[in-house]
């Protein structure tokens, strides 16, 4: 049970992430990675194709800073920093991708 934290939409980084994620893991999108929560980008679609039930959270502050809070894909969950802290404790470890 790993919490993966990713901060950009770089396709190569997401490709590597894809190979490391297990079905019981969760993902938090922060900083510019919140753009991957929009319905169009391929990064999240590919990830969900591999892991359909994956728990994906998106940091609400970073969504708001980019003006896209209302536009995230269904199924993705907006979380606060406090939720982020709690998520990091629910999981056994945190891996930061950058």
């Amino acid at each position: 049970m790993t919490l993966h934290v990713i901060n950009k939409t770089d396709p190569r980084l997401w490709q590597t992430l894809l190979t490391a994620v297990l079905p019981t893991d969760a993902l938090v999108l922060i900083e510019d990675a919140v753009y991957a929560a929009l319905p169009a980008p391929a990064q999240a679609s590919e990830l969900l194709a591999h892991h359909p039930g994956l728990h994906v959270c998106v940091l609400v502050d970073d969504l708001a800073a980019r003006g896209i809070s209302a536009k995230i894909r269904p199924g993705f969950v907006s979380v606060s920093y406090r939720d982020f802290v709690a998520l990091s404790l629910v999981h056994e470890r945190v891996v930061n991708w950058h």
Partner: protein
Amino acid sequence: MSSFALMIQGAPYSSGAALSAFRFCEAALESGHQIQRLFFFQDGVHNASALCVPPQDEFHLPKAWQQLIQQHRIDAVVCVASALKRGITDNNEAVRHQLPASNLLEGFSIGGLGLWMESMAKADRVLNFAP
């Protein structure tokens, strides 16, 4: 109560890394957890500069770190090798290297990477905020 060790590798205002780390740190403290150590590494050492002057209407991240560190008595370590090569120094290092001034914000201390190793072993969770 759980403990967190946070590594900060981003300079203030250059990327979102340092601000994300700061917000996480604040939220962890608000949730009643403990910060085992903050470790400022690579470009992250610029967070500890006493000489940053952002415009008045912008968030002063180095000062905000200092307030949080002093208020909660957090162990905030700046990597010595990263700091010295970027012109961040405390008094001791300034004297040792015969520098004309020092600029480490009060509340931060200079230390080695061994302290980060210790944090990784001791803290319940470790997060790394990098650009």
